[in-house]
């Protein structure tokens, strides 16, 4: 999964920055990253947009950016201090 060369990673990071600019202001979007869908670990890496459980896929999320696939997954995160 990490066999992609430096060129691919450079492209992926640029694409992630573009995707972040597109969607991060949406309140349902929790994270934008480069990775593999945790539910499909055999899949090729791409860009991941994590949205809140139950949220609808935000408008304007492209299927690809510069040839790098974009996937939408669900997840909610909190900081983990014990109280």
């Amino acid at each position: 999964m990490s066999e992609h060369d430096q060129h691919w990673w450079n492209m992926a990071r640029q694409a992630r920055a573009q995707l972040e600019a597109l969607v991060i202001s949406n309140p349902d979007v929790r994270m934008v990253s480069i990775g593999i869908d945790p539910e499909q670990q055999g899949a090729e890496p791409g860009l991941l947009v994590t949205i809140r459980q139950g949220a609808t896929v935000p408008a304007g999320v492209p299927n690809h950016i510069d040839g790098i696939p974009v996937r939408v997954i669900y997840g909610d995160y909190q900081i983990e201090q014990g109280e």
Partner: protein
Amino acid sequence: MNTDHLRQARARQHLHTEARRILYDPNYNVTLVDYGAPVRTSNADDRPTLRFHVDKKRTPAELEIAGIPTVPRYIGEFTTDIVEGRYQLHTWSAGNSARVALPNDPTARYDPLRGGVSISDLFHYQAGTLGGLVRDRVTQEDMILSNFHVLVVDWFALPGKRICQPGRLDGGVVTDIVATLVRHAMSSRLDAAVAKLTGSRPLVNDQLQIGPVTGVDQAQLGMQVKKFGRTSLRTDGVITGVDGVTKLNYSGLDREIRNVVTIVPQNPLKEVSAAGDSGSWWLNVATNAAVALHFAGGDRPERALGMDMQSVLDALNVDIVTASAADVRTLQNATSRVMPGFTLPPTAVDPPFQVAAQAEEALVGR
């Protein structure tokens, strides 16, 4: 991911939704729900399935007479199973004469300090995890690395704020102060902070139960990692995301955190992190080098979030202090104090780390 893995993942979703609803509905008298091998005798499908544990199995007629609803026969693709099981808390009481502190209990008081144990600032009734030992690149002072929300907490906190071990939630008081706050990295969008050791107790490079840290590795997709945290103890995971940017709530304010690494549990049915684990270090299983600083997580689905360790170290201008012969000697001589009258057995050092320490000692001796 094979089909069993996917089936487990789907089971996990059901355990969090429909099965949990039944568990919390008192009408069902269900004491536990889990995913495991079926114990039924009349079903050809012996694959693991969703199981509902009850004090006593009853026939449909008995259930009807008692007014107890029946658990659905099917949930999704799973044929449910009913298992007899009676459970109670295994609590310690004053009548237990042979009280022995559990080895590797991260909520205990540690001397010397080590990564993985409970810590907090002195003013908030909470606890996070002491990440490990770092050294200031300029002053060469030894410091604790953990999270902003563990060591700093308040936006208006000033350097010099006192840090105690164990954390306040685990009984830490003013006599347990071990460090004072120096700086944090929230301005770099990293939930990280360092505190200078007071010298009251040394901090050794030896993560509780998982050994000394050997350096820093870059997070890679598919890398197997492990951590020891104050609440979920040792957990193992796999990195599925890097270079993330996320938004999280800090004391009512949404803040953006960057350089995020996503980790899923190695075993999809197990927890990968929990509240109180913040500040722990994710290590590469293959090298024991630090990969990420844990700070957040989610239960649905189960995932942990860390921040790329090298980015954290650069932002705070510190380096990890790696294993040294002095650490090993300190560990060998250490007597950990848990509380008056109780002694914690020294942590066993895994054989590979003993070998690594010997190699380190040989290098130091040159």
